């Protein structure tokens, strides 16, 4: 009974100290000028981009006008413009004159021997190399000219105009839902955007928070405050308090960015119609959150240990960069996730603990139904790793935090991890 009371008191003390450390590290971080500046920078940049886009951009929602083209028809086939085509027939002298004046960018010549001689000439202004907009214009003009010539050949062969039109444009696809209501496949296809956003936020918050954690731990070592702190707080609540407090600071930054994005979204919808009416499965969001939190705990423990081991800030950043790289690996293999989510590479990335969070967040984004077996294996692997990493990190924290300016040996670190108690 007495032992149970003592254990209860220890647990309360542990949580109280953890809360004191977390609260203090959180408030200290979010009040820093660097934090406030960094947090405000992204929303400011987004706002600036929207402003620039509204000032100088052309709204993409307005359909582009049909490509206009000028044709010199030297063949015996009368031209029948395709529906909607802006086609103008002129003689060669007029075309040359307009091109020379700059009134035309180019014109097309249907040769006298057409269709036996199928080569169509495109005459463009000489003296300059084609620019991007020339290629874009030509790629719009060519299908229009092709449809026009197809219709013209069919009409010349005596095919009925309505049949000729169907030969030229055989199908017209309209998307509907099961109940027959119109739907937009582009909008549905963007259902993966939130889990993908989670993936990016996870990777970003890993780097942001690792920076805060390393800064906090190395600062306490360099300022020689850590021994006073350790005489009041055992290493475990100190480490977990820092992970929670600085993780919360990192998430605050991300939350501000997400909130800004949500506010900016209605404005962006006008320019990105595919995100209008976006619906995300709550199950996918829930799973993504679980992977996010477990992944953060695993990386947080590693970065806390790195801060304790590293003799200075520079070394701490180098070590953390090595571990942080694993968080990015699944994003480097994004192509494999798109090409075949069931591939061996994807499965390995989903099960290896350090790559599991970003891999599973991507996989959830791309799968119509969560791959439950892989989800379970990944959760088990990541959960076990996070627990072991936290335990090992707290032992490393205890053993190495007071090695001012000295780098512990690998043997020493392994000894600390495997030590009793």
């Amino acid at each position, binding site marked *: 009974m007495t032992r149970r009371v003592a254990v209860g008191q220890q647990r309360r003390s542990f949580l109280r*100290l953890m809360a*004191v450390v977390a609260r203090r590290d959180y408030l200290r971080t979010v009040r820093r000028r660097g934090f406030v500046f960094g947090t405000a920078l992204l929303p400011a940049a987004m706002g600036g981009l929207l402003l620039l886009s509204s000032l100088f951009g052309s709204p993409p929602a307005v359909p582009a006008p049909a490509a206009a083209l000028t044709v010199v028809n030297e063949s015996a086939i009368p031209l029948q413009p395709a529906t909607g085509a802006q086609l103008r027939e002129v003689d060669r002298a007029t075309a040359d004159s307009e091109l020379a004046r700059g009134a035309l960018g180019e014109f097309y010549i249907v040769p006298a021997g057409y269709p036996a001689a199928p080569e169509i000439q495109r005459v463009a202004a000489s003296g300059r190399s084609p620019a991007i907009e020339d290629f874009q214009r030509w790629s719009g003009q060519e299908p229009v000219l092709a449809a026009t010539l197809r219709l013209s050949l069919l009409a010349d062969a005596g095919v009925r105009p309505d049949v000729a039109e169907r030969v030229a444009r055989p199908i017209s696809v309209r998307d509907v839902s099961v109940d027959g209501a119109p739907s937009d496949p582009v909008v549905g296809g963007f259902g993966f955007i939130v889990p993908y956003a989670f993936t990016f936020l996870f990777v970003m918050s890993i780097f942001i928070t690792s920076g805060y954690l390393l800064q906090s731990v190395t600062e306490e070592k360099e300022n020689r*405050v850590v021994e006073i702190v350790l005489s*009041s707080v055992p290493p475990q609540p100190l480490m977990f308090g820092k992970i929670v407090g600085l993780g919360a600071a990192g998430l605050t930054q991300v939350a501000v960015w997400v909130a800004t994005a949500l506010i900016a979204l209605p404005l962006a919808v006008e320019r990105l119609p595919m995100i209008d009416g976006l619906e995300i499965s709550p199950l996918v969001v829930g799973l993504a959150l679980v992977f996010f939190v477990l992944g953060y705990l695993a990386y947080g423990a590693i970065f806390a240990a790195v801060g304790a081991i590293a003799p200075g800030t520079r070394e701490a950043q180098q070590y953390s960069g090595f571990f942080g790289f694993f968080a990015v690996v699944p994003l480097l293999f994004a192509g494999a996730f798109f090409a075949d989510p069931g591939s061996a590479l994807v499965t390995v990335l989903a099960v290896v603990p350090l790559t599991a969070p970003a891999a599973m967040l991507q996989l959830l984004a791309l799968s119509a139904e969560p791959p439950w077996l892989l989800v379970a294996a990944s959760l088990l692997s990541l959960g076990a790793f996070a627990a072991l990493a936290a335990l090992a990190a707290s032992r490393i924290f205890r*053993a190495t935090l007071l090695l001012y300016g000295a780098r512990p040996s690998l043997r020493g670190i392994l000894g600390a991890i495997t030590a009793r108690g």
Partner: protein
Amino acid sequence: MTAQEAGPHPVVVEGVSKRFGRVDVVCDLSFEVQAGEVLGFLGPNGAGKTTTMRMILDIIRPDSGRIAVFGGAPGLAQQHRVGYLPEERGLYRDVSAVDTLTYFGSLKGMSGGDARRQAEALLRELGLGDSMAKRAGELSRGMHQKVQVIATVLHRPQLLILDEPFQGLDPVNAQMLRDLVLGQRDRGAAVVMSTHDMNEAQTLCDRLLLIDHGRRVLYGSVTDIRRGFASGAVEVEGEGIPSSPGALRSADDAIASNGRIRFVLRDGASPSDLFRELAASGAQVTRFEEAAPTLNEIFIRAVAGEPRGDTA
């Protein structure tokens, strides 16, 4: 029953050992610290003093042996009763003194409000009232030292562990710390203090523990240890004292220096025998004192391998 006797000893260390790599830093060390006393923790550099203090604070764990702090295992349950001034000490450079102290007080179980009020009161008491909102980076070294000392006693600990507290202190701050140590002892707190300054140890400490290579060399009250190292000599001052060799039966030799005569006692003779002889000789004795070595001499002799003062 006095307050000191009421509870378990603030610190009991029994057969504690600690090894780092291939080096035995602390070997089978035992001692205790009583409430209301200052225990001087002496030893050469690398003797294992800081390691022992860190084990009492549960910053590191012993490989074997037992440590009890207020009757329980060191750690969470005891940490709010302990104040620690480490040898390597600093402050958060970009945080104000009062904010740092409030944080340290909160870690020791005080509410945020109480910690801040107490920190402000102590800062004012030590003349830092105008500097409490300044960042530590803007404070002088002397001010830093005062803030660090306040951090140690802010929560009125019942056990103070001070690792080389006088190192680098200016005379004013050294006196402040001396007064503080004695004040804490007088209110019933136990103080463990490591130092290389033997004069400070002799002035402030009630008992001493001297370790070397992690092993206990001397342990006991200052008086007993000095007596244990007494060399069988007596120092005498006065008029008409016979000082020629062989003039007194109980002394082998007599050396005059600075107005006093140092008599080396013959084997089997006691200071009382010498005193009686002097009285019978008609000499007027104004000072008669057993010649005990200074702590500095004892330290050098003990560390050089003359262990004979352990009176525990």
